């Protein structure tokens, strides 16, 4: 049985088909890329899956539960976590408190009124920071962290919910080339260790082909291709509408 089942998912803005009759499956532990040109509907797709937007039509099942139109926090509780393209962290909190905020949300402690209720969360928060390589920076305000570190922090916050599926919106956008691969390798290690499924969008084809088990391609709100990286490279329609020649070949030739 697949972890995520998407059937006929549709969201229109006025006359624009942001997402149109999207259907696909995702298995547990699978790492899948969602690519497409700007405006193809990837971000809307993420917003629909994570509950930030409600679909006009279609259904989404996650781990056997119908999550269509559920509020974001319910979806998260079921084990579907996400990160944002621009790292969304709590700037005024230090790194540790960012993760603790995520943990207390999971524990339903956001209305707890005694400071000591936070203490038991500290160890787990430190462990999560360590997993993304931020244990040294636990006391630093998030606002002063480097961009890549903020991405790591966001990942730690997503992991705090012990998700089974991670939606990562452009995990390497804005990072220097060297840093990208470091982050991607760490990510992969974490994913494998916990048998997480990952759905991610990405512009860097090197990253896509390096880690994706499967690639989905969107254009004008519709899914135009699904397949292994090799199949996608060879897919004529993908080459025509999305890759405009060049990009795929670059990826092929890169080490």
């Amino acid at each position, binding site marked *: 049985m697949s972890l995520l089942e998407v059937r006929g998912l549709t969201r229109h803005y006025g006359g624009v088909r942001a997402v149109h009759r999207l259907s696909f499956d995702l298995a547990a532990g699978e790492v899948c890329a969602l690519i497409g040109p700007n405006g193809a509907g990837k971000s809307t797709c993420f917003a629909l899956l*994570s*509950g*930030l937007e409600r679909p006009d039509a279609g259904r989404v099942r996650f781990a056997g539960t119908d999550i269509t139109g559920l*509020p*974001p*926090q319910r979806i*998260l*509780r079921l084990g579907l976590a*996400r990160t*944002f393209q621009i790292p*969304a*962290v*709590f*700037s*005024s*909190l*230090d790194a540790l*408190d*960012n993760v*603790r*905020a*995520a943990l*207390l*949300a*999971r524990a339903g*402690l*956001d*209305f*707890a*009124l*005694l*400071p000591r*209720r*936070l203490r038991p969360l500290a160890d787990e928060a430190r462990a999560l920071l360590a997993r993304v390589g931020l244990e040294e920076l636990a006391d630093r*305000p998030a*606002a002063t962290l480097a961009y890549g570190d903020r991405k790591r922090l966001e990942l730690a*916050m997503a992991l705090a*919910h012990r998700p089974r599926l991670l939606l990562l919106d452009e995990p390497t956008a804005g990072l220097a080339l060297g840093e990208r691969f470091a982050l991607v390798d760490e990510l992969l290690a974490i994913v494998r260790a916990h048998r997480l499924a990952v759905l991610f969008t990405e512009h860097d084809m090197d990253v896509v082909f390096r880690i994706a088990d499967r690639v989905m391609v969107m254009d004008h709100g519709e899914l135009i291709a699904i397949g292994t990286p090799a199949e996608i490279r060879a897919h004529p329609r993908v080459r025509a509408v999305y890759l405009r020649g060049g990009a795929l070949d670059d990826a092929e030739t890169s080490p």
Partner: protein
Amino acid sequence: MGFFLVQFLTGLASASALFLVAAGLTLVFGVTRIVNFAHGSLAMLGAYLAWALVGVLPAGPLGWWGGILVAALAVALFGLLVEVVVLRRVYGAPEIFQLATTFGLALLIEDLVRVLFGPADRLGPRPPGLAGTVILLGEPMPTYDLFLVFVGPAVLGLLWALARRTRFGVLVRAASEDREMAAALGVDERRLFSAVFALGAFLAGLGGALQLPRETLHLEMDLEVIVEVFLVTVLGGMGSIPGAFLAAVLIRELEAFGILLFPRITLVLAFLVMAVVLVVRPQGLLGETETGSGPDPRLLRPLRPAGSRARLATALLVGLLVLLPWLVPPYGLVLATDVMVFALYAASLHLLLGPAGLVSFGHAAYFGLGAYGAALAVDRLGLGTFPALALAVAAATLGALLFGAVARRLAGVYFAMLSLAFAAILWATAVQWDELTGGDDGILGVWPDPRLSPLVVWYELVLVLTVLALVLLRTLIFAPFGLALRAVRDHPVRAATLGLRPGALRVAVLAVAGALAGLAGGLHAFAKGSVFPDVLHVARSVEGLVAVLLGGLHGAGAGPVIGAAVFVLLEDWASRLPWWRTVVGGTILLVTVAMPEGITGGLARLAGRWRRRVREAEG
């Protein structure tokens, strides 16, 4: 028939003058994002200048109209001066800072007008040629009012032409719609802001001056005008000039016909309409939705629990306060009680402004609900002090929950303005529902139980309650609840996707802040023995803001306490001086402009610099 026509036209005439002033405010807000509390003062200045000029210039149409125009131009020039000297320094600051700065300005301008024109009421002459009446369907209609009916639409048209047909207008629109784009277009922001502020001041001056033949000039005009103009601007939509026109007409016609049906509740009526509109359309009639402006950068530092030295110092201070009755004369104790009550009020407001990032312009609502709750409990129900205080807290909490239910989804300026409206409705109710509240005469005889009434006992009780409340506040801020609040403030969307509940958290924090403000209000009622509508007045809300800003926005409770102490002591001392407005206003300006992180922040900065210097000297 004629009666209704003339009533309608008279409403339009009043709306015109109101619209001019409001257009200036909304224009300035649209471009600079400054909520200018001193805008009413500019209108007052224009009116007084016109009065003086018309008196000096030769009689005749030229003298009269010349006087009006020169007055408006002089106000524009004055506005320019204010912009360059003061406001330019606070553009980057969050709304509350700007509001406090302009509140300080308003105090200064009031003293300026007093010096220049004297304290007496003034009524200006009518313009030659427009002094009479014409008969419309059998009803007399003043010709000057008829002229004013056309002024509003004419100015609206001129502003429209300015916006659409001139380069200046294009830049103004670009700047109000998209600042970054405007910067990319190569707009010189400084010059544009100065020009817009001068234009806004001109409109305020003109609006004030044109009221010369219809309204008595007096020194309370500034506050009166600003409250009405806020109402109109918010109702119309912040930044929307046609909206301001529509709202001005709506409000004035509501008054013109409302007094026929409900002569006793005209005040409540206007604010009630505003609240209803805002609930349905938070952005006002013609305003555009705006997302929150994001948290104040000053807040973007983590809060740390106090170190052992700070704890020790606090413990010593509390110990000293316990012993205070044996150290100072009775009046010192009275003053210390005032400081503590005000500190509690300021700290409850700080919880909203700081950790929760909710800009409340109407915090007096909860203070006032508490005060009236306690007073009514004593006066009507004959309850003792403690049950009355409990009722005060309950009344304020209920009010906060009600407001939270309505305003939970609003952010930034719209939240601020709805809170202002909420407090204004309560104030107007307290003034006009005198069967319950005693109106302006207030509720008297609200003294503590006999066993609590000796000054020392009362002082110690207030001390205990205040310290407990402040400890509670601090605990909350460092508890998971406070952490969640700060997370929601920093990034509401992120917080929601993580499973925090922004709406519920906001309602909860409003309830907590409301409850503590209500306790402060109840204590205030017992300390003074009486309650009057001024506990709900906008000035009380602003005083709270000023105290919080004086103390410093960042932090977890020490700031507002220090700010409140400074404010109460400063006001007490300054109230002996004839120029207390200048003193208080000047202090506010000085702190907001020169020490934007407040007294605590400023001291911390100085201490840091000193430590660095010591280290350098040692190294």
